[in-house]
């Protein structure tokens, strides 16, 4: 049955060489950063909103509220990342002693 499960070996080997876990940046930095910037831009638009803007949005200062909410979301993501940084996995984890690897037990 070695042939049947050859592709699983391939995937395992590639997974060991894979660099994603170690080298891919944290998505929380991306969301947090963009939302903080957007939050600031939109909040300023809210502070400087004109009468026409307010009237159009049914007298809700929607820019102000959206901007502040985005700012909070952005900061929360950055705080989350700071409190619980992603742990890079061990360089080469030892295969667990228990279960055998596919194909090992048969020829």
């Amino acid at each position, binding site marked *: 049955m070695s042939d*049947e499960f050859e592709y699983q070996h391939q995937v395992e080997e590639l*997974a060991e060489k894979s660099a994603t876990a170690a080298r891919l940046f944290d998505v929380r930095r991306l969301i947090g950063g963009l*939302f903080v910037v957007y939050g600031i831009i939109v909040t300023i638009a809210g502070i400087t909103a004109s009468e026409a803007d307010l009237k159009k949005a049914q007298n809700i200062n929607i820019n102000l509220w959206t901007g502040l909410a985005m700012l909070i979301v952005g900061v929360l993501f950055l705080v989350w990342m700071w409190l619980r940084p992603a742990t890079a996995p061990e360089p080469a984890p030892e295969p667990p002693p228990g279960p055998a690897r596919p194909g090992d037990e048969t020829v």
Partner: protein
Amino acid sequence: MHYLAEGLRLPTNALDYSILILYFAVVLGVGFAARRSVQTSLDFFLSGRSLPAWVTGLAFVAANLGALEILGMAANGAQYGVYTVHWYWVGAIPAMVFLGLVMMPFYYGSKVRSVPEFLLHRYGPSSHLLSSVIFSVASVLIAGVNLYAMAIVVEALLGWPQWVAIVVAGFFVLAYITLGGLSSAIYNEVLQFFVILAALIPLTIVGLKRVGGWGGLKDSLETSHGADFTSAWGGTGIGSDNPLGANWLTIVLGLGFCLSFGYWTTNFAEVQRALSAKNLSAAQRTPLIAAFPKMFIPLIVVVPGLIALVLEPGIGTEKSGTQYNDAIPLLMRDLLPNGVLGLAVTGLLAAFMAGMAANVSSFNTVFTNDIWGAYIRKGRPDEYYLLTGRVVTAVGVLCGMGTAFIASSFSNIMNYLQTLFSFFNVPLFCVFIIGMFWKRATAAAGFWGLLSGTVAAMINYFWFYQEGVISIPSDQGANFVSAIVAFVVGGVVMVGVSLFTQPKPVESLAGLVYGTTSPGMAEPPAAGDEAWYRKPALLGWGAIILAALCYVPFSL
């Protein structure tokens, strides 16, 4: 695809454009930043199977939350009313939970890299090649349709010529996927998910204030369209008439079972997100985590559709010159001041690009691994397939752009194609589910079940329904019935063929059929996965119960 009406031009200014340009810059930056993480083909196609569950889960929702889906479901809201919630609560949640709890152990545990690859190991080359080719062709064509739809919307809203929109969006998608592979597609999807929320939540709040809150909205609609319009099940008794053209049985069986299970459990553009998770538990949790946001999306998509119907009572009629698809753009134009307007435009464009990127990133995986690597150039070193994946990405996007240009002259053909491909997923699901639970199902049965189910659905839709042999009140209703036909015919043919052909030896099915395990597959649970809130069963059943509860306010 419908043309958007004239007069939808948004009053955008420099502020809105800076928000939009910033987004495009970030998207490209993600591609460059993700590039250094791509060392192997597994990194490129499946992010090295290493992402955390919340990231893959949000990408799972976002891959489906393309702009066509957003505009289309708002349009359904304006056209069919509250019935549209069936696409979410019956038509998505149960299938997502089933994928996570029942099917994911087979997909992820067998270490296949794509949905068609599972067919190769469970059945054999014939069904594998058939589904790989159809999936590849469909992905490229759908990416093109997406691009074309975006060009129309952008032309109407911002005044860009269609070819500019097609080239710009196509180029950005090509660049960031070629650079960073699935990781940059997924990261951009997660980002798009939050941006689209930031766009649609303010739109819904302002819109609701305009029509006097939910109470005011409901009163206006019941006065103009009758009480059933704001109820989920009113008027769906068998034989009674409703705008959807479907009764509760075809809704539950056709939409809730055949169509939705077909789409959510076998569409590789979705399943790929789960296969990139870091372990089996995270892969199982991917669609389950996705189910919770999915449940509440109607609040910010269907509700704006209803609001648009109150504000523009003639929407969708010849006289008004507006289409149902214009519902969200109309509200954006009338209600959002500059700033939030820029966010909304950005969210919409982001959703178009993410929808297309999901098609492209699943296409390059299937084409490279399941067609090129499996039948044309076997056994090359991994670098070769990594490079092939990048080239295929570029070719796929260019073909999609070509399709978009063709679509602008033959838009009816594109509608047909989309309907046609939607029928392919249902027999595919039938073949999967029988293959996963019945050891006796044979290789030939897989191929003939797939083919006969697809053909049967097409005959039912294009001949019986469109030629008027049987009478079904609406296209949606006919879709639901065709899906049921595809499932039943595919299943019957599979059972029939299996009984007369030789089954695969049981040893070769380890890990692919219920009750067997792949040798050495049992991996140790990762630290922290035993926490109660990470238990797949709890998340799954929680989602089902919550979706059922969502129906309560709309059923009394």
